[in-house]
């Protein structure tokens, strides 16, 4: 099972949109795909019209009293299931901290899912926490959305530095520009400076498009809402690059 995670220390950069669309694309290719919405805000859960509730809450889940397998919900799409968010996930750090090696716990929890799924996508909450450390350990590929701005690049450097110093196994990093507004000079210049120059930054560029914002009210992936839009093409390209990275 390949484990990918969408992650950034910053919030509101397109993590959930990416996780939802890539999960859909993975499933459409025939991969048995599971999306775990780890963010207590439950945006991915909302987009798939699933109730943000996990039986027994985060404590039972982290302790293994409720196996992950029993909490999974089917989405409206073939091959695509979701492990929903729950408000109690806000206390996930505390629950993980009860373990001797808290940063290994998420990897331990997801391991048994390998027999039922080809791809697992973790949609992480923003920030640096035990949850994000656990995700870094569980994932083989980290997808990092970047808004084209100087500060974003600085944060990305901090992240690559942090991952580089982490113990093995370390995930491969694939960053990509997200919410790119071609009308803004800063966006154009930042993207032009970086894309194609670094192997850890994808060629795919996800545009800031109203159709991406429509995911919320319409509660559907962009790829379904508008199959021929530039945003869909960008997510398809990004998925292709993520798959290729895994095969390297």
């Amino acid at each position: 099972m390949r484990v990918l995670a969408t992650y950034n220390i910053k919030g509101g950069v397109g993590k959930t949109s990416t996780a939802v669309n890539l999960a859909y694309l993975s499933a459409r290719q025939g991969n048995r795909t599971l999306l775990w919405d780890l963010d207590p805000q439950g945006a991915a859960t909302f987009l798939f019209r699933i109730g943000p509730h996990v039986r027994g809450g985060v404590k039972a889940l982290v302790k293994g009293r409720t196996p992950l397998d029993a909490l999974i919900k089917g989405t409206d799409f073939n091959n695509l299931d979701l492990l929903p968010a729950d408000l109690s996930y806000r206390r996930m750090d505390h629950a993980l901290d009860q373990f001797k090696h808290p940063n290994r716990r998420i990897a331990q929890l997801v391991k048994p899912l390998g027999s039922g799924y080809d791809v697992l996508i973790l949609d992480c909450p923003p920030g640096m926490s035990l949850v994000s450390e656990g995700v870094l350990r569980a994932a083989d590929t980290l997808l990092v959305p970047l808004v084209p701005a100087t500060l974003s690049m600085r944060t990305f450097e901090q992240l690559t530095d942090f991952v580089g110093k982490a113990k093995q196994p370390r995930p491969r990093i694939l960053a990509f520009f997200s919410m790119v507004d071609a009308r803004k000079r800063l966006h154009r210049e930042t993207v032009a400076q970086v894309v194609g120059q670094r192997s850890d930054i994808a060629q795919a560029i996800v545009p800031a498009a109203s159709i991406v914002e429509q995911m919320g009210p319409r509660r559907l992936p962009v790829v379904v809402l508008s199959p021929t839009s530039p945003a869909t093409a960008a997510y398809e390209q990004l998925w292709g690059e993520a798959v290729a990275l895994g095969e390297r």
Partner: protein
Amino acid sequence: MADAEISDAWLIDALGGEGRIKRELQQTVHREWFDTFDWRLHRAGLTLELATVTGGARAELLLRRTSGEVLQVVPAGPRGTDGRGAGKTLVLAGNASLASVHARLAPVVQMRALLALVGVRVTVRTFSVLDANAKTVARIVVEEPARDTDNTSSAPMSRVTAMTVRGYEGEARKLARRLSMLPALRPSCEGWLDAALAQAGRRAGDYTGQLDLTLSSTQSAVTAVQTILLRLLDVAERNMPGITADLDTEFLHDLRVAVRRARTALKLLGDLLPADQIEQLPLDLTWMSDLTTPTRDLDAHRLIADKAEARGGPAEELRPFHAFLLARRQQARQELVRGLRSARWSRARQRWRYLSTSQHPASAGLSSAGSEQTVEDVARPRIARAYRRARRLGEAITADSPATDLHALRKRCKELRYLMEFFASVLEARSYRAVLSQLKSLQDCLGEFQDTYVQVRAVATFADEMLTEGAGSAATLMALGRTVDALELRQAQARQEFGARFKRFANKSTRAQVAVLTKDRAQSSPDQLRGWR
């Protein structure tokens, strides 16, 4: 199931109205099911279905449990261009989009081909059952026979199915209950595959290479031998088309085993049948065995290259060897197919059938006292004798014994195994399992020894021939040299293990189990009878 056509409006009204039931799509689909000849998917509780939307524009491969639950859906591309090999087989290997299904099924299917079983053309209408958030919590699938141009339908009946969405199982149960209460519908557990198979005069699991015979200990020994022979003839004949079409290697394997078992039956039980009727058949069966050996051996040799590749070994260097073997196999197979189509084999099967079905004269199968022998009279003493023969032969084997001695023991072990399998239904189950376990362990060791022994010599011969024909580079010959080294190592390991395995086969404990197995049932104590089938 329904006998009349079901309208959308009727179904939506009956199940809660527009807000709750949403019609998704309607399409005409050609469904074709695949399984191995010996039903490996079915035995694993799975079905594999290629669903092609009319026009061939889109096809999906659906892996389901036999209960109908969908486990995986993979886009398979337009029919005939993606995933389908030549003829009526489905090829998963080497196809990137089917890789995950291949990985999942490979341990079940192994070396067997996935063959098309049956197909139906159906019109499918899908409806979603929605909750308050407009989330699909269950699905209703209405399938009806598609109308052909001549207004005849190609599928057997109409069905309405409640489909589960993971995590919402209760909703599907509620839906199924509601559907079952609708007067126009009647409940059924039979799926499309079962119905389509029934229409084609078949049923799931209708072939196995195993004997699976139910004999009675009081039954006449003659009719029991006839039942065994008839079953073996059926297995042999059912595998012939697969060999001729070269669908996979196991058709030949099953035919060879059936022929070998029949030879054993004639050798060890043939005295029960009229002597004049079994003069020619053993000779024909030996001829057929010999005819099949080169192809089977070449299949086994090809596995050497395949295994090397699977282990990440010298696949590139062994490629010319692979090509050389394929050319040799082609020649051997042509000979084999000619033999299978020959008048001699046809006559041999006629003799085989006649021997298995005709009424034999009253003198056949009589004991020295003149009474008719039963299975009870025959099975146990002959198994005991076959065990003693194998044990004596094994005890004479020393560290210096030639490979031919081990091969001779292997043949005796096979005879014992077949004899036990013929009469499995009348033998005490626990002892049967215990003896069989030791016998299998010994057979595995002897098989490994003999196979590697043959392969070492064959590879050396082929290497010589390749050199003469200029068919292989120095790298290929060196890779073959390494292969021979590896085979010799395996052979030496098998030889080393033989002593311990034979010891377990011949020790006091196994002898005691054989004694229970072969003891006259009438003289057995109640304790010994407890585990009787």
